[in-house]
């Protein structure tokens, strides 16, 4: 059905896809798995017409397939259902399903026919949803069914599902699987992307494993198990980029989280971090890691649980409040939340702690001096600290983001994906920086999707899955496989 031959895609910093070839047959569910950054999303974006490949060719039913746009792809019958759903919340279910293809009569939308058509499609997939309901009022699982009905309304030949179960409960997942199997029987080719290995093994007919932009294996559930898939996903050499681990002085935890919950994202999370300790927080995207960190620093409402700082219960109302008490958070979303791209390097560095430079009028000379200090300490490459931060590379922007939080002299630092989009050299520097800060007594939490960096850096690693802490492993002795097994739900293990 769909032939993918030798696809290559180069981004400025990284080769996202490197000669990827695979065949997707009609009437099969083809699983595509791999770690974050393995190239799955890029490949799917190419299939769905969101990005063009640099090299290689696509063939759909024997004819060359070169979508330049999402509409080209869907006209050719290739439809992708994103992790973030693409529905118009304020329109009804029926209007969404037939968006852009509304049946008309005398130039007006034929509402009656639109509703019957939508009902028919919803019935076909076994979804009992009112076509008149407003999409925004539906739970996410039903919204996803609406997306699938929409996909079916347009003669879909290839359906790409990107982490569809991330937002679903167990029962809803079972429903989705039944639907996927029915579509397979109708001859639809289904590409199924997931992190959760058990469901991939359960649902897929064939499984392709991507790693660092290449296909490393193509296998079937019959000849594989979750352990083998996990090691295929992570199997790569560790380069000696990590600083030596210095044991924390075993004292009372500085930050102690008990039974913390975040509505819709996490429940019952326990976490302890001692001064000088680096604790990793592993888990797949959507496992609730970021939400827990944001809840700790008061950027999200919690649903119960306590946070203690040096034994005293604290309840942060805002990032300001948390910073004042010495708890700092560096967001994973560097450009959206970490730094202010319109401001200069100096302004970014001093922003969280501007009060220290003068209550009313900040002393600009001191601001400049402090920034120069941080530039030297963190080895930031910055030709003009008065220039806009947007002109720096990602790694240097990230260092400024860290510097700005450190400038408030925190006792606890939570770093969310600190090395995302950062080149290897800068990663190494960030690791050494974190290790040095910890050895000076800072309590650090590092959230990361890159297992090698957690293994190389952390004293302990807590693993989350679907909003729950499923295990805590010892940093120096853990393996990528053991963490991946916990994160992907192969085993439960509560330390």
């Amino acid at each position, binding site marked *: 059905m769909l032939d993918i031959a030798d696809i290559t895609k180069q981004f400025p910093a990284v080769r996202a896809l490197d000669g990827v070839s695979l065949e997707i047959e009609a009437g099969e569910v083809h699983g595509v798995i791999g770690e974050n950054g393995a190239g799955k999303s890029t490949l799917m974006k190419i299939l769905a017409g969101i990005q063009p490949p640099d090299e290689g060719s696509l063939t759909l039913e024997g004819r060359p397939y070169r979508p330049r746009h999402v509409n080209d792809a869907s006209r050719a019958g290739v439809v992708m259902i994103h992790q973030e759903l693409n529905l118009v919340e304020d329109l009804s279910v029926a209007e969404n399903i037939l968006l852009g293809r509304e049946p008309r009569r005398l130039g007006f939308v034929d509402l009656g026919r639109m509703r019957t058509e939508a009902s028919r499609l919803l019935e076909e997939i076994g979804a009992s949803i009112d076509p008149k309901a407003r999409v925004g009022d539906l739970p996410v699982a039903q919204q996803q069914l609406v997306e699938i009905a929409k996909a079916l309304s347009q003669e879909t030949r290839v359906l790409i599902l990107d982490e569809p179960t991330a937002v679903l409960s167990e029962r809803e997942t079972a429903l989705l699987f039944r639907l996927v199997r029915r579509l397979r029987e109708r001859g639809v080719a289904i590409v199924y992307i997931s992190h959760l290995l058990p469901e991939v093994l359960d649902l897929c007919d064939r499984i392709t494993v991507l790693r660092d932009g290449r296909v490393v294996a193509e296998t079937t559930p019959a000849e594989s198990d979750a352990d083998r898939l996990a090691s295929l996903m992570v199997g790569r050499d560790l380069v000696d980029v990590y600083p030596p681990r210095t044991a924390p002085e075993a004292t009372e935890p500085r930050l102690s989280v008990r039974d913390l919950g975040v509505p819709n994202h996490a429940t019952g999370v326990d976490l302890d971090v001692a001064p000088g300790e680096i604790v990793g927080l592993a888990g797949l995207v959507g496992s609730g890691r970021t939400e827990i960190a944001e809840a700790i620093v008061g950027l999200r409402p919690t649903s119960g649980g306590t946070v203690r700082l040096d034994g005293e219960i604290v309840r942060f109302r805002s*990032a*300001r409040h948390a910073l004042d008490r010495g708890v700092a958070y560096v967001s994973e979303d560097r450009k959206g939340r970490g730094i*202010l791209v319109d*401001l200069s390097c100096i302004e970014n560095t001093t*922003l969280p702690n501007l009060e220290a430079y003068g209550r009313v009028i900040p002393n600009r000379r001191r601001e400049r001096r402090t920034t120069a200090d941080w530039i030297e300490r963190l080895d930031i490459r910055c030709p003009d600290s008065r220039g806009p931060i947007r002109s720096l590379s990602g790694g240097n922007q990230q260092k400024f983001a860290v510097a700005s939080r450190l400038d408030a002299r925190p006792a606890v630092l939570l770093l969310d994906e600190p090395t995302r989009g950062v080149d290897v050299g800068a990663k190494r520097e960030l690791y050494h920086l974190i290790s040095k800060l910890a050895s000076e007594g800072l309590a650090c939490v590092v959230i990361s999707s890159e297992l090698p960096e957690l293994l190389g850096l952390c004293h302990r690693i807590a693993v989350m899955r679907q909003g729950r802490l499923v295990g805590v492993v010892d940093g120096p002795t853990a393996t990528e496989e053991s963490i991946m097994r916990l994160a992907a739900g192969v085993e439960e293990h509560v330390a």
Partner: protein
Amino acid sequence: MSEGTVNRNKIAAGWRLALSGLERFGVIIAFIALFGYNAITQPDTFLKPENLRNLLNQNADIGVIAVGMTIVIIAGGIDLSVGAVMAFGAAVGMITMNALFDGGTNEVLAVVIGLATGIGLGAACGLLNGVLVTIGRIPAFIVTLAGLIGFRSVTLAIAEGGEIRAADGLTALQTFGRGGLEIPGVLDYYEQPVVFYWNILIFFAVVVAGQLLLSRTRLGRHFIAVGSNETAARYSGIAVNRVRTWSYVLVGACAGVAALMSLTRMNSVSSSGVGHLAELDAIAAVVIGGTAMTGGRGRVWGTMLGVLILIMISNMLTLADVEVYWQGFVKGVIIILAVLIQRGRAN
């Protein structure tokens, strides 16, 4: 690479530089061009010190409001209620000083208390706007649109739709309005020294204060951060709600100062006329001055030039005998041109 290409590249680079200069300093160029044009074509009228003085005096109140508007827009908001708040502050200020004066309070004290009441009331209205926008989570456009309608209505009710005049015998207000700075050697047609009224000096003082606030103070930095990316500002530990509320309080206080200026100039308050359409003139000046409507980027000195440009255009059209009805059309065209020229900076 042939010599021709090199030259062409140089020329292209030169153009780019010129264009980026136009984007950044277009407002200065426009100001100088307009001033020069007026000075050359109307040397006997436009350049006369008393003409310049009168032009500034008549528009100083709008200028002060425009400075406040610059701040609130840079902080990511907007305030449509400024004209109505100005009228409200002027009416209450006038009533207060009349009552005090009639009650036997010292004249100067009555005026000072009345003016302070007007400014305080402006700031209070701003506080109300700010609280509704931040804690009430209502879009600024809607809150301040309601303010525009509501505060004007209250003012009309207080004055029963008419005018409030200074009490008989209360002359301190007028004395203040006519007072000011004489610049030695600057004489009018009758060889009398030209007085640059206090209102004009207040306008320039507010411009300087506003620019310093934005570029030198912590609050100013926070305004820019919040207007540039509210989420990132919150993650950086900025008390976003407090900062945004402050921007409305400041613009409200500016409307209060404008109220004071109109009182000293007119010696009375017209409940329907004072501040009428002031919000639109102020926003126009802000836009012409090169402040981004999306927030995070802007300059008070640009707004000042925007105010002066609008004044000169009116003056130019009036002196050229263009009917007053057409002046708005020309202003509209100027606003669109200003945005087109400055758009390059946004991308």
